[in-house]
């Protein structure tokens, strides 16, 4: 899915974190954003995910506008249908490894069988099948 960011700005009080950023991320490609700390990499990601509300600009995902300051559109994060890996991982410590993988799939109302199959696939891919019932808390 293509993601298009146009003229995105984000101000924290008066200091700009993003200043008129425009970029198109094409489908099927991996894009790396590089920059010194404080240059707005995380803010851009958080704006796309909907965790931060941009001050102005537009964000499109496929042919859907998920954010537009002009048209007062702001789709909440849980309806944007995205995935995000957090800097601090954002894992749920009270769930096992397997449940951490399955939670987003359950939320999307996948059948139990489908969920299991997908999580099994993911666990096998990273070689963590033996660890799947381990709880993260310990």
């Amino acid at each position, binding site marked *: 899915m293509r993601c298009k960011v146009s003229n995105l700005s984000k101000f924290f009080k008066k200091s700009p974190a993003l200043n008129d950023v425009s970029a198109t991320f094409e489908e099927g490609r991996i894009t790396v954003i590089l920059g010194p700390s404080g240059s707005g990499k995380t803010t851009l990601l958080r704006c796309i995910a909907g965790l931060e509300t941009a001050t102005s600009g537009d964000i499109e995902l496929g042919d859907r506008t998920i954010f537009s300051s002009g048209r007062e559109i702001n789709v909440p994060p*849980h309806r944007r249908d995205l995935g995000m890996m957090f800097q601090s991982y954002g*894992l*749920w410590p009270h769930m096992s490894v397997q449940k951490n993988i399955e939670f*987003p799939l359950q939320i999307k109302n996948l059948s139990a069988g489908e969920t299991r199959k997908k999580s099994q696939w993911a666990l096998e891919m990273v070689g963590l099948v033996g660890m799947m019932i381990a709880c993260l808390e310990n």
Partner: protein
Amino acid sequence: MTPAKIFRLSVAPFVVLVPLLFLIGLPLAMIALASIRGGEGNVHHFTLQAWSDLFKTRWIWETAFNTFGVAFVATVIAFIVGTPLAWLIARVNVPHRNLLNFLCLSPLFLSPLLSSVAWDMIGSRPTGIINFLTGGLFQPEFRLRNFWGISLIMGFYFSSYVFLYLWGAFRNVDPAIEEAAAIAGLGPFSTFLRITVPTILPAIAFVGLLIFVLALGLFSIPAVLGWPEGFFVLSTRIFFLLSIPPVNWGMAGAMAVLFLPVILFGIYLQRRLVRKGDFTLVSGKSARNIRIEIGRWRWPATAFIWFYWFIVAGLPTIVMAVISMTAYAGAYAKLSFLQYHKLLEYELFHKAVQNSLITSILGATLAVVISLGLSYLIQRLRPRWSPFVEYLVSVPLGIPGVVLGAALLWTWLALPLSSLVYGSLAMIIIACITQFLTTGVRSVSAVLVQIGRDVEESAWVSGATRMTTIRRILVPMLLPGLQSGWILMFILFFRELSAVLLLWSSRTITLPVLTFEIWREGSYPRLAAAGMVETILIGSVVLLVLLLGSLWQVFNRFRSRHGLQQRAFQESVSD
């Protein structure tokens, strides 16, 4: 404007602020009104009569001096006792630290009413234990029933607060800054004085103000040790004005209003300290903790902690237990369970036990739910009006229980439909929840703060709504913290006396009120028995909840493991 935005701007503040103002703001306004209301029955007019009467009394300045003096001295004593304890447990390599930690916290579980009665028996009469043991060393006799005695016992009571807060502060000090000081050439002692103490100074100021404000309003210790000698502080004086005929609402209201600005200013200062952000109550990162070796001094240090526990918690409990088994005061030769049997025959006692259990279990549950909602609002939703909510929530902490009780009584008598609530257990529950709202929100907030936002955010990005996130991520993660919050609320509600003292009726009497009434009748052995029952009931419920909590954890582990084993078995069969 979208409907969601309209909801956020109009309905949501209304739903949160109106009940809060109703619970906290209205009673305070009503008690202020009571101080300027004149006339009888339905005839109203406004007058400053009560105010001028108040300043013409002989006792107003004496009461003010006693209140502030006792609160100040008690705060100082609490620091003198509590600071070394906190430092020893947090930073020094003392043996059996977990046990010693528990010993330092145990005074928190003692009811101030019961421990002050125990102290009264230890150190007040010619027949008291201290005078008995010292055999006339003190002439005419050693007495706790005076300014210094009350301050001392209050200081003991609050020393566990100092321990609790400074323990956290000492632990949060990054050992690296002390190491840096050592490398810069400072000795251990000057490092402590010039580096460690200034670092925790905000925490010291915070807990100092907290204790001072709480001490200004504390009721039971000055009631037990001061009242019989005609020594009054704010809270006991207000109760006196409202419980001994002729009841004087005007003067009681005026006294409450007189002290409220001081208390609100204390709360304001305290909040300023926290907002400056140069110290955190809970640090998320577990800093590397280097413990100071004190060599041979470990044993005197351990002995000091045991001695503290014995004086503040052990001795009063033992004294209560022994006295509860005597037939009449001073009859130590023949111990029996007579007092307990007599209590069981007493119908009011059954009622009181039942009411106390209902109000504290129901009230604590409600309080935790409300606190969770308010903490979530203040910390996570952060609407524009949340500072106002925060301030409102921090006010009840400083309102003396007696003032709150009087204000609620006055408010509910004036309200239409009040008969539904007044004289019912709901009244008691409302009083308790209001009185401890600050404590509840603070304890839940402290747990919520520790949960990083990323955990919630990753659930949202994964497609979970806010409610799903709260239900499936936040609440399960908070559960152990909410459990301790519940236990704290339960203990506070169960033993609450001062807020309930003006609100009870024979149908809604609680165990602490019954204990206080027995004290007023002067039957010490029976009082001690009721006190022991209270202590045992609190202890058993707390143990039961802890047990249920760990059973739940074990059950959850077992369920997930069992389910997975079954699945593994099925899969191996199908292969």
